[in-house]
């Protein structure tokens, strides 16, 4: 054994320094990932806990952004867990990986080191069958308990399975149409576990939820001493107006006080990531729209950034043009306003200010959507960004001509419309909204001091976006790990003080003001670059992506949205991603829901959930 001299741990500096330190600190355990296009270090599975502890405590990478699995079937035949950790003070990622066998994959759980790994490890267990030793609550999270197999594995095939990769052969040149539905839906690729009793379906699928640590002990209906309150378990959702979609909370109550909460999700699960791996790189852009469907422009942005990072590994790559970057940021910031208007509106709905504030907010949102529709062609499913640019330049006029379908005409100058919105209408509205609600005594009593999340907990549980910043952590990807043209823009990161519901509300209000500030800086830039190219290179429908991995992340309105994309297989460049993972802020932010809700009243859990601002399209994927 060679004795390495261990230097003092670099708590600042690049991921390269950190990797060098780790290799010296854990000789023989940590090694470089030498596959072409791959970064980071590979850690031996049995020592993962120790190494992760050192990464967090000695190197200062205290924020675990993403933890996900990859199945390298036919490419080494192993499973891999990939972790991306960041420093909350800013900077790039430390990417560390663990490899394990495919047959009986076991990886030590990191929940003790990074509590934010909780849901992500459950997801990897659910979809890949990786067993996490030491995980406190290892059960399926997106799929139901009676599901056989691990659907993200490369050898698992879905119902209606047609081929490993798109485009499918049957579409052209002899594309006689058939409906996939007409073939047997419950064919050979839908299976149940061997010991699964279909007649006991409900019992089996629910028992796991009720047996979890936070809920166990249900069904006991006894009286407490003083208040004579009952203990009971209440199911809120999946069909409940306050859950913003099909989301279920199993609450354990003592009278009206919450003593345990178990979120149940996956009702909207469609295996987005598997679909993404069948798709070509281009096909995935409109699919990302459907994640967080309130802010599709932001989703597009994150995905094209991740793929552009991969393309940059190859020889022939030209970065997006300046005008394209300006338009992207314009869209991202408008999306932030759209999203926050929506989330604040519904948050007030949850507090009982029934629909009036929400409709006022939505009236403004509609105007921005009008702009999206005129530019991208759709109000919600924008599908606007492309690799190396955007779909089309901003049109001169927002014009609706009378035609066969419509008899109404609209015709505005686009830039005039935009500058009216940015300089007059939206600031006026925000000022009015402040007057309308921020001083409202009922709002204050319902929100101040409620649902508190401390800064330490928020970081530990990998919370992101307004939830993290509401707790007083000034972490914003736009500043911490800047991308696009954000470094040259002037804006602040609003933070809260106590981490309660009111702070999150105020952070969102302030963020809209900051977005307007960015937008006002963009208007002259748009004028300056008018007429320039919005696309670098050619508009190819089948770009070949060189081998490698990339993690592209953006500050989406709901928090940090990351895309982990692996290109593998064809040395000349593949058309379909080997791995396509979405680090969904709505999903990971829910880790904090239970801890925030315990000790609160049952009526407050509605507003706590509203303050996290989830979209189930993204949570369940």
């Amino acid at each position, binding site marked *: 054994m060679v004795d390495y001299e261990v230097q003092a741990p670099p708590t600042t500096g690049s991921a390269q320094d950190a990797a060098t330190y780790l290799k010296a600190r854990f000789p023989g355990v940590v090694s470089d990932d030498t596959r072409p296009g791959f970064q980071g270090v590979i850690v031996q599975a049995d020592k993962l806990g120790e190494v992760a502890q050192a990464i967090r405590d000695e190197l200062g990478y205290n924020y675990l952004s993403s933890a996900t699995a990859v199945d390298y079937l036919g490419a080494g035949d192993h499973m891999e867990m990939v972790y991306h950790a960041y420093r909350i003070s800013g900077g790039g990622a430390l990417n560390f990986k663990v490899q394990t066998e495919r047959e009986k994959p076991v990886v030590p759980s990191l929940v003790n080191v990074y509590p934010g790994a909780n849901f992500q490890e459950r997801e990897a267990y659910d979809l890949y069958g990786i067993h996490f030793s030491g995980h406190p609550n290892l059960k399926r999270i997106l799929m139901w308990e009676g599901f056989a197999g691990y659907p993200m594995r490369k050898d698992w095939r879905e119902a209606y399975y047609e081929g490993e990769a798109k485009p499918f052969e049957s579409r052209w040149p002899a594309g006689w149409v058939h409906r996939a539905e007409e073939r047997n839906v419950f064919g050979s690729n839908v299976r149940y576990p061997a010991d699964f009793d279909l007649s006991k379906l409900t019992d089996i699928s629910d028992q796991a939820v009720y047996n979890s640590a936070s809920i166990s002990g249900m069904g006991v209906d006894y009286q407490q001493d003083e208040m004579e309150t009952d203990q009971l378990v209440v199911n809120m959702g999946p069909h409940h107006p306050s859950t913003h979609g099909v989301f279920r909370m199993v609450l354990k109550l003592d009278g009206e006080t919450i003593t345990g909460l178990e979120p149940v999700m996956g009702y909207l699960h469609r295996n987005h990531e598997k679909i993404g791996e069948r798709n070509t790189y281009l096909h995935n852009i409109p699919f990302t729209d459907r994640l967080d469907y309130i802010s599709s422009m932001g989703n597009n942005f994150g995905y094209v950034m991740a793929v552009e990072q991969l393309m940059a590994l190859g020889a022939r790559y030209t970065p997006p043009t300046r005008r394209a970057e300006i338009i992207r940021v314009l869209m991202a910031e408008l999306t932030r306003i759209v999203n926050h208007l929506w989330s604040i509106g519904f948050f007030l709905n949850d507090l009982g200010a029934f629909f009036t504030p929400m409709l006022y907010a939505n009236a403004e949102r509609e105007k921005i959507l009008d702009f999206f529709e005129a530019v991208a062609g759709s109000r919600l499913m924008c599908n606007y960004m492309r690799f190396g640019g955007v779909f089309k330049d901003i049109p001169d006029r927002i014009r609706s001509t009378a035609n*066969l379908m419509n008899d109404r005409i609209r015709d505005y100058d686009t830039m005039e419309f935009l500058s009216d919105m940015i300089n007059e209408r939206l600031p006026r509205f925000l000022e009015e909204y402040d007057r309308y609600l921020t001083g409202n005594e009922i709002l204050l009593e319902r929100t101040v001091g409620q649902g508190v999340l401390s800064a330490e907990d928020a970081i530990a549980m990998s919370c992101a976006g307004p939830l993290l910043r509401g707790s007083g952590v000034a972490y914003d990807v736009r500043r911490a790990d800047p991308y696009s043209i954000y470094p040259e823009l002037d804006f602040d990161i609003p933070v809260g003080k106590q981490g309660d519901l009111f702070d999150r509300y105020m952070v969102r209000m302030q963020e809209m003001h900051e977005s307007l500030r960015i937008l006002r800086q963009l208007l002259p830039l748009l004028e300056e670059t008018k007429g320039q190219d919005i696309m670098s290179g050619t508009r190819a429908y089948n770009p070949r992506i060189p081998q490698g991995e990339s993690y592209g992340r953006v500050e989406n309105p709901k928090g940090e949205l990351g895309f982990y994309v692996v290109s593998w297989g064809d040395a000349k460049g593949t058309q379909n991603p080997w791995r396509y993972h979405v680090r969904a802020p709505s999903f990971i932010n829910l880790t904090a829901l239970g801890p925030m809700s315990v000790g609160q009243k049952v009526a407050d859990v509605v507003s706590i959930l509203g303050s996290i601002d989830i979209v189930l399209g993204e949570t369940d994927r």
Partner: protein
Amino acid sequence: MYGLGILKGLGVTIRHFIDTYKDDVLYGFRKYSKSQDNFAVRQGTQATGAYTVQYPEEKVAVPERFRFTPFLVVNDADHESPGEDWCTSCGICSKVCPPQCIWIVRGTDPATGRPVPQPEAFFIDIDICMNCGFCAEFCPFDAIKMDHDYEMASYDRTSVNIHDKERLSKPFSYWMKIAPTTATEEADARGGWEHSDVIKEKKKKADAEAKAAAKAAAPAAPAPVAAAVGEAVAAPVAEAVAVAESAEDEEKKKAERLAKREAALARKKANKGD
């Protein structure tokens, strides 16, 4: 004072209430008239108060780039070859379609078995279409476009939601009507209002004619120069002859292609009759 915030908020509510009806009164209830200008103002950035559109009696006009489901462009009824598809069945749209809802049967010549640039059949499964617009964006012939017609509800999804070529085909004039600016931009890029293949052939023909004319004029004028330079001129003349020959070949090929195309069309019409 406790409750002041609530009162202030109620002030905002009443303001909105008044704003909603203020314009109605000011314009003498023109909101309910068919007036166009009123509609444009209330949908713009200067509008105040709430304003709802009485769907389905009235509809918000959609912008040009609005995309719903795809349709196929065919020649207008008054065109020299009416109803001819712009689609050449190259298959790019079916490859670029993210949910793979486009099915194309490439046309073949029954005599030779070779592909002809016409789709024999074309299907779009509207249930699966995600309205992304990639097919229209990547079509090299401007033959598939996104429609504005969003009223497609039906009572039976199994029988009507797979659109065949007949259902998908709409004349070019329709595209110019729903998206005049885009259609003009595209025509500029193609170099004319016709299909790009037609434009190319016209251009080729014009070039060939110009060259033939140049050739006819050439021997007369530069004769003295040719004598002076000798062999140097021989080569360009030979080239000109070659060009003239290839132009003739082009004519032949074009006639062949047209015949094939017409044969395919006739066959399809016959199939339709069955």
